[in-house]
């Protein structure tokens, strides 16, 4: 197909340039750019009028229009009169439509490079602002919790039930798998060292104390951060995008009480229970290694574990679980509520919720460990 557009130009009068367009002006074919005309106009001595001749033009589409738009923009800038009469009627009208609303100039984004100091400053300001927002959210949550204690919080019991189901029962399989394997891994690593001293039996102590006091809570917390924290953030974020949260506010219902509180409550209730369950799974994992690989008797392993793991250990583990639950719920709900109004913002919120929760879990573990050390527990 001879899909070619051609341009010829002639100066019909001293101040008039006639642009003859011919052939096939379709996008994707071979089209001469507008540069040729623009150069001619620039060099041409005092051209004040541009007219078109399109009698030889057979086909046209967007390709012709972009060309014309370029020429027109140049002419407007140089105050050259552009006579559209010679154009095909359709192209003329589309061109008029395209120039009916003037280009918005001031709306363009500034795309200047930011200097390092400015960047650093912005980041610092952002950091403090987000720290402030975090505190504000925490405050709102406390207020909502107080409302709950006074029995005045507005939320639906059925919602709470559903969330408890989602964060509790439905999390059991993944928590089982992870904690069983962690117990198994701990036992393996311990066994290699302890075998050197012929002290295999202490694998039970190692696995028991590590799981009950710390690992079960941390692993469950991290699983829940990924599973539930991200889900909370995505859910509330999408509600933010759909203006559902605005609708709650204007209906006089506090989103903190209606959305955040049940989630927090559900995780705070379920996390210690999940931890307890994770303890059992972890110890079971260790036992598998102990009984099958190290030839420790089942009863013997059980007795050793019972002797090693004190009530304090369990208490600390469950308390950590409770704290982690609150952290995961807080992080998820906060990022969801702060979410922007686009699909990518929802993604950012979910990511940020998981990261915040995991950082929170690790930091609070450190704090709890140091505190316990001071208290001599």
């Amino acid at each position, binding site marked *: 197909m001879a899909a070619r557009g051609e341009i010829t130009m002639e100066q019909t009068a001293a101040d008039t340039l006639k642009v003859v367009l011919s052939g096939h002006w379709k*996008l*994707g074919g071979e089209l001469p750019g507008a540069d040729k005309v623009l150069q001619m106009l620039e060099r041409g001595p005092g051209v004040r009028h541009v007219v078109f001749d399109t009698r030889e033009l057979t086909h046209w*589409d*967007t390709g012709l*229009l*972009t060309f014309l*738009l*370029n020429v027109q923009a140049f002419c407007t800038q140089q105050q050259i009169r552009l006579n559209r009469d010679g154009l*095909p*009627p*359709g*192209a003329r*009208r*589309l061109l008029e*439509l*395209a*120039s*009916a*609303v*003037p*280009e*918005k*100039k001031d*709306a*363009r*984004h500034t*795309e200047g490079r930011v200097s390092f100091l400015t960047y650093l400053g912005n980041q610092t300001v952002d950091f403090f602002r987000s720290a402030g927002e975090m505190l504000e959210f925490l405050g709102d949550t406390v207020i909502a919790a107080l409302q709950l204690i006074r029995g005045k919080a507005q939320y639906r019991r059925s919602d709470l039930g559903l969330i408890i189901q989602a964060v509790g029962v439905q999390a059991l399989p993944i928590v089982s798998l992870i904690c069983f394997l962690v117990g198994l891994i701990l036992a393996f690593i311990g066994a290699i060292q302890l075998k050197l001293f012929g002290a295999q039996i202490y694998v039970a102590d190692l696995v028991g104390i590590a799981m009950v006091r710390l690992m079960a809570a941390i692993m469950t917390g991290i699983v829940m951060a990924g599973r539930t924290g991200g889900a909370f953030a995505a859910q509330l974020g999408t509600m933010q995008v759909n203006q559902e949260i605005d609708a709650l506010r204007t209906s006089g219902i506090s989103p903190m009480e209606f959305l955040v509180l049940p989630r927090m409550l559900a995780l705070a209730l379920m996390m210690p229970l999940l931890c307890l369950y994770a303890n059992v799974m972890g110890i079971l994992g260790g036992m598998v290694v102990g009984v099958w690989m190290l030839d420790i008797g089942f009863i013997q392993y059980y007795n050793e574990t019972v002797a090693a793991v004190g009530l304090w250990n369990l208490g600390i583990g469950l308390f950590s679980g409770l704290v982690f639950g609150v952290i995961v719920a807080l992080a998820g709900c906060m990022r969801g509520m702060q979410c*922007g*109004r*686009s*699909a*990518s*913002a929802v993604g950012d919120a979910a990511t940020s919720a998981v990261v915040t929760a995991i950082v929170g879990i690790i930091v609070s573990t450190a704090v709890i460990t140091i505190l316990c050390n001071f208290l001599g527990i």
Partner: protein
Amino acid sequence: MTEKEAHITIRDLTMAYGDFILMRDLTFTINQGDIFIVMGGSGCGKSTLMTILIGLKAPAKGKVFYGEVDFWGADQETRDRIIRRAGVMYQSGALWSSMTLAENIALPLETYTNLSPGQIREVVKLKLALVGMAGFEEFYPSEISGGMQKRAGIARAMALDPEILFFDEPSAGLDPVSARRLDDLILELRESLGTTMVVVTHELASIFAIGNNSVFLDVSIRTMTATGNPNQLLAETRDPNLLQFLTRGEKR
């Protein structure tokens, strides 16, 4: 282009969600170069009809022909090829929120044409100018108003100079002047490029201003009751439901 060539033919179409039948026995023809209005009250299945026509949802029964090709009888590849020549404007714009408007419009061009980046920039500029949004290239969809998102959605639908354009509620949520300009744009594109337009709407002003063919889906009896030029329908119909619809409930 001859005026009366069939572009899309719908025959005995039944739309359903599971057991729930939304509309049955739809038979009508959209001609080449028509501005075809799909009208009907809320919840009558206008938008569902569109999802069937653009290949997103299979009909429960019946056939859709693009030209001679049985659209839903063909394989996915054929359907993709047909739909590539169509542009769709979704109800709320459906712009990709992680891309700027320029990138939104450029994506189909980059995917399906071998234009240079410079040419693509020019096309993007033109399409935005056509919907009255020149200069908004670098904006993200979340930074502009709902009406603007809609218009940008139209610019994206037009990117590839499609043979057929689908509009889902194009002028809902636009100010009267923008809505009017949109009508002008639809008319102009049909005039100058011969594009077939399928417009799902219940904006009466638009229906009478631009439509030269239409189908009325009656929600109460779950089928179509009329097809033809809306102005003519208004003058000739005896159907109380249609009359009520076309006169904002004033006549019945």
